[in-house]
């Protein structure tokens, strides 16, 4: 076992993890934060997207020891109590989801995109979300949600 310290959604944790465990397993199983999903497990689908030290990453491709000392934000870290993050509010209002499995990853990628480019062009939205697959919606409403989230985030 390997001792690691990570900060998740602002809360520090000291954990003893298997050295070959992934960050995704730690988040879901050790911390019980099951909002982050496992889709493919090999970095193709983006369902497990979290933000680590300000960058979006696939949690399924990060080994737990690699996350030592890092600051991580998961979907659970966005809302402030009952008040949704503007991105969550936009997806909710526009209906940018159907089954919802890809949604946490979509929202985390949107978070990373808007932090970098508050007013993304359509092409930038396309590039920003290129690592997130949705098998239900056909993406149209997800795009609308990102545009709306950009408007809301800028106030």
């Amino acid at each position, binding site marked *: 076992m390997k001792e690691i310290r990570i900060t998740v959604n602002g809360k520090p944790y000291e954990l003893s993890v298997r050295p070959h465990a*992934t960050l995704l397993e730690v988040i879901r199983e050790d911390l019980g934060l099951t909002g982050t999903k496992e889709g493919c*497990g*090999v*970095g*193709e689908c*983006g369902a497990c*997207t979290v933000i680590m030290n300000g*960058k*979006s*990453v*696939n949690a*399924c*491709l*990060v*080994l737990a*020891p*690699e996350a030592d000392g890092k600051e991580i934000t998961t979907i659970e870290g966005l809302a402030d109590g009952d008040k949704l993050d503007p991105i969550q509010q936009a997806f909710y209002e526009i209906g940018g989801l159907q089954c919802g499995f890809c949604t946490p990853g979509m929202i985390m*990628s949107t978070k*990373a*995109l808007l932090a970098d480019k508050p007013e993304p062009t359509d092409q930038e939205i*396309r*590039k*920003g979300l*290129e*690592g*997130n*697959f949705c098998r239900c919606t056909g993406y149209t409403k997800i795009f609308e949600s990102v545009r709306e989230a950009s408007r809301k985030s800028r106030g």
Partner: protein
Amino acid sequence: MLGSYKGDAKPLAGGTDLIPQIKAREMAALRVVVDLKAIPGLDAITYDATKGLSIGATATVTAVERSPLVRQYYPMLANALTTMASPQVRNRATITGNICSAVPSADSAPTLLAMEAILRLQNQKGERLVPITQFFTGPRQTVLANDELITEIRIPVPPPKSCGVYLKLSPRKSMDLAVVGVAAFVVREGETCKDVRIALGAVAPTPIREARAESALLGKKLNDESIAEAAGAASSECRPIDDHRAAREYRCDMVYVLTKRALTQLKEEAL
């Protein structure tokens, strides 16, 4: 450390190739992975007007692609890197890892071949410099020994009056492997081509330079005729596989189309 575990240890940079391979049991069980990201300074990206660009082994694709130095002096490289995978993968993956994985379709390879990158390989005993043109030996095979690491990729300063472009063909615009990748780089003297470098990905056991296509243009003007001749040479010289991604004939035809398109783009680019 890699040496003492013989083949049972692998270096880990971004992990975006290694971890899926371990999960899929595509390689023998490893006893140890050595995380190179813990080595201070190995992620440096520096530029020197005489030595050129130096990319450290653990510099991520995002870091290189966004580096103002790379954007200013090596726009061809920055553009090629944005065609790779997704933001999440580019935030972790490294160019060194892309090269070490040595898949024929590696998106960084044609550009590095065209820009004549030099790799610094190091082990405990010392180091050697290997031109990237001599690095790949087959699909997923390179000259890198078990106990060696690429610690640095060096790219020479682009000569004056040079320009280059990487074009990638894949069925999907994102998250897809190249069916054909073409990098073209031309140095002009007056109207004629003083140096021409054409490199292809995904159409041979390794990423390759196309010597015949290059010599078809050397000393000539870039015009429709010379471009068609070079594209024809590239297309007849490549040796692609037939697989579920694309048929051999299709890949050869697309080498013609993409080489022509790349060179035409360079012809029109003002210097």
